[in-house]
């Protein structure tokens, strides 16, 4: 029998037993016909029956799944014709206008793009309206569009709506596939857009709204208790070419003269297309003169082909007016801790090697990128290389009170011109300090010196620190007190301890310098204070707990994360502003940046691996059928081009609570609650953070029960919520059990702080994984899982996080995006161990940090493929998950860490999912 057959034969290892009986010693896998094994249902059923709660039954699962996607009653987005030929469509829609436009242009030399008026006329009845003048033209057109649907005076009434389907939370297992499914559709007829392109509205991967239907009044929003916020992620990949966005190259930028909104697919052209009505404030603006003229080829161009009228996400190349100064080059200053701890842990060696290997990946098309290196111990060590020189000169400054630059030039090294010198320096970097006994770390003075070095250019300071700063300004003390952990006073450990880091952050922000922290700890590192600097300068904090280069996994993780970080195409000197239609105001902003004015977020450099949350308030009653939000981000690309990325999302309005609830996005709401709670944890207490999550959830459930839940009869009062919000209770529970918020006396303040950093910045899909980790069962995954198809590697379906699903003979994978755990049950059969790891017994497997071996076996290959796929699931992440092996019979500490991710289970002092629902029910009843 071939190896493959043998493998298929074992389709599910030990599964035939169905319960947790220990397989006999000489367990021989049965080899049935491969075809039979496709049907894994009986096995799943067996698992379900085995669960303690007894609520997981296959039938109910199916019922839950039926109501999974909220259905559109009519005219949903996808029922619109496809959009590849937008010009075509636009002409169909604008017959009269186009005809007139052609006539007026007839005198001009060449109107080639508009040469088909007769065809256009023929195709459309003359009554067909100009789509946006709907308000003026009357409601006739709309009713035509919706085919006989009744239309009130209020335009909003005509919108197709999402259907509200209630579910009883008690009666079903949480449908975790909802975590990755798209939000309720935005039911905005595409005919509202100028071109009717399907890309007119912003896809959820860029901007997600907590409600895809905006209430017309603030009182309705307040009454509904649903938070109103936008989750914005301007970039979805680390390098532009992985996820390109259409670019408007002709520097003609048309903006509303009152509200400054950029022209977008929802702008309403009137007056023969000479003017347009801003979809945000309603004022009429002139269309720029050469809007229909292609200045590169000197020909008339088709307006309806312009990217900004077809795509909701576009990059404008900015003209001169948008530049304060010439585009700055990309600058990295590496501030490396060279104290004894740092050298002996191998951090300096690993870092210098990783930087050396990444030199080619630093974006440097123009050859302008610059780097500098500063070593920090009880003095500051500068390195100077003159262009073309092979060797670097070390210059030591020991004045920490007023750190000065030892030279005026050659400290900031042009990456191309000084390449040889830089390479030599990095190769010798560790050996230069190998014999050091210095245990001081003058981070503060080092930061000041680095800032002085680049304050006129701006750039990034990348700090690699592995000891607590203990000399000069910004020195920190060991304030961790294990007695405080788990008490109410624990929060004081999460607040910054030194005001230097905040005031320095403001200084950096004004001079366009952003600071990133890579922290390596052998002991307390005060992440809470040090992470302040990245928080306000749009940087990032990475924390490597108990890191040591002698573990190859540790070294590899750091090296690959540093490489990802350096190869990221960051944007420089960025500012972001979110504008909303009349009556809407952006009230608070969450994320890593500095608020330069009430609604302007400043980013000295814009990382591509973070997302931002903006809270919206409704100030005036909205009378329009839809509203728009526009995120505009002015930045300099690392190739020295000034650009504006504009993301426009338009949402229909409603005055019914039902619509509001039917189009609420549970994932976006969860993200909003997360960032708000993180903010609370950092500014006040963890208790308050947890309470803010739970009280919001209770409010939502209360409102739903009072206003929307179906009339229920009988003694048992179910806990109801709409289908699209059914995961919210689980996500809230998972949040309160998360490392960042859990009440526990075993989480050091460093780990908590870094968890809060991740919680407040991770992009949505990764954040969901971080809050509710994904559990895969590897020993009985379907045959196609782990194999490569056109869509890439197939992942097995995720399981609910309850340890009742774990078989003692199984092999499981839990992925939190930051960590991955391979769990091998204590009764695993030898064949499984051989196939997966190439070892004969459990005792041969070392629990803890783990590298998946690569052996020539289909199961091993598939597991490696799955691990690889999970590492690269999101193109916009710099994090490389660290893999741990957990043995069912192994280290109790590791096991309890592993099982703390099983959020549906009861733990220490937090309830299981069912108990949680019970308490919710009690709270809602009151």
């Amino acid at each position, binding site marked *: 029998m071939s190896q493959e057959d043998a493998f298929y034969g074992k389709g599910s290892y030990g599964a035939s037993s169905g319960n947790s009986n220990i397989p006999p010693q000489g367990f021989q896998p049965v080899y049935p016909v491969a075809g039979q094994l496709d049907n894994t249902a009986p096995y799943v059923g067996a698992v379900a029956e085995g669960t303690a709660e007894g609520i997981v039954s296959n039938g109910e699962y199916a019922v839950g799944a039926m109501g999974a996607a909220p259905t559109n009653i009519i005219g949903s987005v996808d029922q619109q014709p496809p959009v590849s030929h937008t010009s075509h469509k636009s002409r169909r829609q604008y017959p009269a206008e186009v005809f007139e436009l052609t006539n007026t242009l007839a005198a001009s030399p060449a109107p080639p793009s508009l040469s088909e008026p007769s065809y256009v006329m023929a195709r459309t009845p003359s009554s067909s309206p100009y789509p946006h003048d709907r308000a003026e033209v009357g409601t006739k057109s709309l009713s035509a569009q919706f085919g006989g649907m009744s239309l009130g005076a209020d335009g909003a009434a005509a919108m197709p709506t999402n259907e509200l389907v209630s579910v009883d939370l008690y009666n079903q297992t949480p449908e975790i596939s909802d975590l990755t499914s798209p939000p309720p559709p935005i039911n905005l007829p595409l005919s509202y857009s100028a071109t009717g392109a399907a890309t007119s509205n912003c896809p959820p991967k860029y901007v997600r709204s907590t409600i895809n239907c905006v209430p017309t009044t603030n009182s309705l929003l307040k009454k509904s208790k649903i938070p109103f916020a936008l989750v914005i992620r301007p970039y979805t990949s680390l390098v532009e070419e992985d996820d390109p966005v259409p670019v408007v190259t002709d520097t003609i930028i048309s903006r509303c003269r009152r509200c400054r909104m950029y022209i977008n697919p929802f702008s309403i052209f009137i007056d023969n297309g000479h003017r347009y009505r801003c979809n945000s404030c309603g004022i009429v603006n002139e269309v720029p003169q050469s809007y229909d003229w292609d200045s590169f080829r000197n020909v008339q161009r088709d307006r309806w082909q312009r990217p900004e009228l077809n795509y909701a996400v576009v990059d404008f190349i900015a003209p001169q007016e948008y530049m304060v100064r010439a585009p700055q080059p990309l600058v990295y200053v590496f501030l490396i801790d060279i104290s004894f701890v740092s050298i002996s842990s191998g951090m300096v060696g690993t870092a210098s090697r990783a930087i050396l290997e990444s030199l080619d990946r630093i974006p440097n098309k123009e050859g302008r990128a610059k780097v500098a290196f500063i070593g920090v111990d009880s003095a500051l060590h500068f390195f100077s290389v003159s262009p073309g020189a092979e060797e670097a000169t070390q210059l030591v400054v020991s004045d920490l009170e007023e750190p000065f630059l030892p030279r005026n030039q050659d400290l900031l090294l042009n990456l191309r011109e000084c390449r040889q010198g830089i390479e030599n320096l990095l190769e010798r970097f560790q050996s230069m300090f190998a014999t050091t006994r210095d245990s001081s770390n003058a981070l503060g003075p080092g930061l000041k010196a680095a800032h002085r070095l680049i304050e006129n250019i701006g750039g990034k300071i990348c700090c690699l620190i592995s000891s607590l700063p203990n000399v000069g300004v910004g020195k920190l003390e060991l304030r961790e007190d294990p007695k405080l952990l788990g008490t109410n006073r624990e929060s004081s450990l999460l607040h910054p301890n030194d005001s230097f880091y*905040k005031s320095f952050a403001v200084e950096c922000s*004004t001079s366009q310098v952003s600071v990133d922290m890579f922290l390596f700890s052998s002991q307390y590192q005060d992440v809470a204070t040090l992470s302040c600097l990245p928080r306000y300068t749009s940087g990032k904090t990475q924390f490597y707990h108990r890191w040591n280069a002698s573990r190859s996994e540790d070294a590899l993780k750091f090296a690959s994360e540093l490489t990802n970080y350096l190869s990221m195409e960051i944007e420089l000197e960025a500012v972001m502003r979110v504008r909303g239609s009349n009556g809407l105001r952006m009230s608070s902003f969450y994320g890593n940046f*500095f608020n*330069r*004015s009430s609604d302007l977020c400043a980013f000295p450099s814009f990382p591509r691996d973070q997302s931002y949350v903006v809270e919206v308030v409704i100030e005036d009653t909205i009378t329009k059928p839809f509203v728009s939000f526009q995120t505009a981000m002015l930045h300099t690309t690392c190739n020295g081009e000034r650009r504006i990325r504009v993301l426009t999302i338009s949402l229909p309005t409603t005055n019914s609570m039902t619509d509001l609830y039917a189009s609420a996005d549970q994932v976006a709401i969860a993200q909003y609650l997360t960032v708000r709670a993180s*903010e609370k944890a950092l500014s006040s207490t963890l208790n308050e953070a947890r309470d803010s999550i739970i009280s919001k959830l209770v409010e939502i459930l209360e409102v739903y029960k009072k206003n929307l839940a179906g009339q229920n009869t009988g003694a048992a009062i179910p806990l109801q919520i709409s289908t699209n919000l059914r995961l919210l209770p689980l996500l809230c529970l998972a949040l309160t059990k998360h490392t960042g918020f859990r009440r526990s006396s075993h989480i050091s303040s460093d780990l908590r702080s870094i968890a809060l950093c991740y919680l407040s910045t991770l992009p949505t899909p990764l954040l969901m994984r971080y809050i509710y980790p994904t559990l895969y069962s590897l020993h009985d995954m379907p045959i196609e899982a782990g194999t490569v198809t056109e869509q890439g590697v197939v992942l097995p379906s995720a399981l609910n996080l309850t340890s009742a699903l774990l078989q003692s003979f199984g092999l499981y994978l839990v992925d939190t995006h930051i960590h991955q755990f391979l769990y091998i049950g204590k009764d695993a059969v030898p064949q499984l161990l051989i196939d997966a790891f190439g070892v004969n017994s459990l005792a041969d497997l070392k629990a803890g940090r783990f590298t998946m071996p690569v052996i020539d076996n289909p199961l091993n290959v598939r597991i490696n493929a799955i691990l690889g796929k999970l590492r690269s699931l999101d193109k916009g992440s710099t994090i490389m998950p660290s893999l741990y092996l957990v043995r069912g019979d192994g280290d109790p500490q590791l096991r309890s860490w592993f099982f703390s991710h099983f959020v549906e289970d009861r733990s220490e002092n937090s309830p299981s999912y069912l108990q949680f629902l019970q308490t919710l029910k009690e709270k809602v009843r009151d």
Partner: protein
Amino acid sequence: MMSFGSFVYIACLLLNGANMLLQIFCVIMFSDLEMDYINPIDLCNKLNDLVMPEIISHTLVTLLLLLGKKWLLFLANLPLLVFHANQVIHKTHILDATEIFRQLGRHKRDNFIKVTFYLIMFFTLLYCMVMSLIQEE
């Protein structure tokens, strides 16, 4: 010659008046910030220089009232003194540019209460001063 009592009133009146003007200035600055006429960094630099003088002068007023045995007025000033002391102990008296927009609501409320307090205090002190001067005549 003016009695000590009158001197206390006059000194307190002047200091209190200065504090009142200062708080009104803060109100204007905060509304400027809301309207984006000033950026948070400039605002904090300007206002933070004025925080300590205000606290010191108010403490001085309270002390003078205590020395002058004006018990009622002293008690009226005591809550604000405690509030200031609490701020200084927790280091929250300095405005933080990074958090200013999140705390704006609270700052404005505090400001408003202070202005009202100083205003009432101003007229009370004015009345007391006049009365005390008349009595001396």
